[in-house]
């Protein structure tokens, strides 16, 4: 049994960690947090040069052609560093949708640009409150033009193109939904930045008024593609979450070792130790669930839907748990703008919602386990 990443993959993780510790220190995250830029353009370029943006994109489309396991290790490091770049939207959502459903021409147009850091992509799925479901999609497509509003769209204000979920039927079935590719720099597209709990990764509202669009995949197959994209993205984002959870745990541990109160390091008090031990437990459970997700993703196993849901739930819980308790261990200082704790807290709670909330994935997991049980 070799239920672990290979030495080469671990080496890639070390490279990514080194690169990000140099190019993405907390002050770089802060620059975006403070609104100095919409995202870190230099970092984005650097990631492209390192080959990280196209790590899972086939070589014929300008990528490294490595695979999803390699992307998982990069994702973990991106989460650890809170990289303030549109990585998850472009790489996990847009690129995966293109690779799953794009025509050869569409792949040739966008994938090399993604790998080179020259195009930012996203998935425009949500339309206000609610979780992923064909029912919440009201935006309509007629011919090659779209009408309706999407929000929140991750990184929508800086994206060059979007994969848009649209209604093309009214039977009340999944087949009512189709996907379209829209060049967001074209006409009929109005973008409004939305203030959100984690400004280091933007959210936007996009209004489509007779916007020009081209189909992505066959008509009526949109929901099937979205489901697959969400499962893949759930595993990848879960690695980001585990990276963030681990870092929050380390920050709490380090503070508990350094901070003296009542004449001793606060880490010698059991009340503090036990908080940190529980953080370690949740982060470890999440990591193990993520490994299973990575295996299922990389082998395109039939277990992927179940594994993705488990990874997503476990990693969401772990990151939220570690981020909030990191603040608790820091006490008052943890609640200052100056300390970095809140950046992890913000990211943890924003990523908990992006692909559908915890309760959505809980429901999905049990659905999928039931189906396996019945089969």
């Amino acid at each position, binding site marked *: 049994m070799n239920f*672990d990443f290979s030495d080469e993959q671990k080496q890639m993780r070390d490279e990514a960690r080194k690169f990000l510790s140099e190019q993405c220190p907390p002050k770089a995250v802060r620059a975006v947090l403070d609104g100095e830029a919409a995202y870190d353009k230099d970092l984005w370029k650097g990631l492209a040069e390192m080959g990280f943006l196209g790590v899972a994109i086939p070589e014929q489309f300008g990528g490294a052609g490595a695979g999803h396991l390699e992307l998982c290790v990069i994702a973990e490091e991106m989460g650890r560093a809170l990289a303030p770049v549109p990585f998850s939207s472009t790489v996990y959502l847009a690129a995966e949708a293109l690779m799953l459903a794009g025509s050869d021409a569409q792949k040739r147009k966008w994938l090399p640009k993604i790998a080179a850091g020259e195009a930012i992509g996203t998935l425009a799925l949500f339309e206000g409150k609610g979780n992923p479901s064909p029912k919440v999609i009201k935006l309509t497509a007629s011919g090659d033009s779209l009408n309706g509003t999407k929000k929140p769209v991750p990184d929508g204000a800086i994206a060059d193109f979007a994969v848009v979920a649209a209604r093309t039927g009214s039977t009340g079935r999944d087949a009512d939904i189709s996907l379209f590719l829209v060049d967001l720099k074209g006409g009929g597209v109005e973008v409004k930045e939305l203030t959100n709990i984690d400004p280091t990764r933007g959210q936007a509202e996009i209004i489509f008024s007779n916007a020009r669009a081209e189909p992505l995949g066959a008509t009526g197959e949109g929901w099937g593609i979205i489901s697959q994209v969400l499962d893949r993205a759930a595993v990848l984002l879960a690695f980001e979450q585990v990276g963030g959870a681990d870092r929050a745990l380390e920050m709490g541990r380090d503070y508990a070792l350094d901070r003296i109160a009542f004449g001793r390091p606060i880490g010698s008090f059991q009340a503090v130790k036990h908080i940190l*031990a*529980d953080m370690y*437990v949740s982060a470890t*459970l999440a990591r193990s669930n993520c490994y299973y997700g990575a295996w299922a993703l990389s082998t395109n196993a039939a277990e992927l839907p179940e594994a993705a*849901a*488990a990874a997503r739930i476990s990693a969401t819980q772990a990151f939220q748990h570690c981020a909030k308790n990191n603040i608790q261990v820091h006490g008052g200082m943890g609640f200052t703008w100056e300390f970095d704790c809140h950046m992890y807290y913000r990211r943890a709670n924003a990523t908990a919602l992006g692909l559908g909330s915890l309760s959505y994935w809980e429901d999905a*997991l*049990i659905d999928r386990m039931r189906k396996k*049980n019945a089969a």
Partner: protein
Amino acid sequence: MNFDDTPQEAAFRAEARAWIAANAPKQYEEELRKSSLGRTQLKNANILEVARAWQKKKADAGWACLHWPKEYGGRGASPIERVIWQQEEGPYGRLSAMFIIGHGMCGPTMMAFAREEHKRHYLPPLASGEKIWCQLFSEPAGGSDVAGLRTRAEKKGDDWIINGQKIWTSGAHYSDYGILLTRTDPAVPKHKGLTMFFLDMKSPGVEVRPIKQASGQSDFNEVYFTDIRIPDHQRLGEVNDGWNVSLTTLMNERMSIGAGVATGFPELFEFCNNLMLEDGPAIEDRSVRSRLANYAVKASGLKYTSMRAISALSKGERPGPENSIGKLVAGSMIQEVAMYALDLQGAAGVVSGPEDAELAGKFQAMLLRAPGTRVEGGTDEIMRNIIAERVLGLPGDIRVDKDVPFNQIPTKGRS
């Protein structure tokens, strides 16, 4: 990343599987598979006898205590082969419960500290289940604080005279031998005055009294020692070095990987799949699904944590400390699972008699046994301390009794 055996592992697995298929007591397979916490009995057989027969059969064919050297009754197998065996043994592994302490703790301690002639004499019948061993550490005044124990050992000529009391000794009532931690010098700080021995449980002056647990069962005992005599050659390690010897024992307890800790989740999931609530199937209820999902990811998290450890073993590495989480997570989870399963039964959840209760009272039995899982083998709090100190590197507790002679440590709280 894969779950595949190496060719050598696959060959070993095939051999183990074939032997088990030909030799296991299949008539009990279903019952053993369905057994759960607080419910491991066989209806028409004495489980102790079935367990001993299975262990002997394994030993005769070289499948007992696989990782022990052959000369001591083992197979000289690698750690990963031991795990593969456990996977293949499956439900029959539950028959090993009465041997776990002897094989997991007493045997390794003997191997590390006993004289060669003792090892050759005592270890093979321990491996084969012909002799059963217990571990005599905990005392009324020393549970989590095991170094606070008070059982005295005093040298008289070539022998040691033992007086005192142990508690929570699993299986003492059917054990032939035990390893015993005693105090040999009360005038020095507590960790520095302990000595380890092994003894014959049939020695004159040993009295075993079963403890009736809160669950109504009796898995544990109190053991009283009145002037029992242990020859010095049965001492394990140096005089007053018993604390270090005991660390070997405890380390081995926590090294056992792959056996899989019971969480109660598979039972709960199956129960919910078949349960009808007032408004329809329980499994279609949003709140039920949410609870189930939370338990599911803990159970799968533990499973894949153990897979990661097994992978480390397979590569010849030492598994990391992440395995210390198993008992902590599973212990409180099985208690919550049992409570929730009763909650879903409504008022009828109170009924526990096997004839009248849902699923023959499986979850009721689990509930009543569960408090013990959070205490035995290291309380939840001790496990958290271990994770915090040994994994995360946080400082140890400030110990007010560390440098105080044992006989000057206060023994009463409010006085």
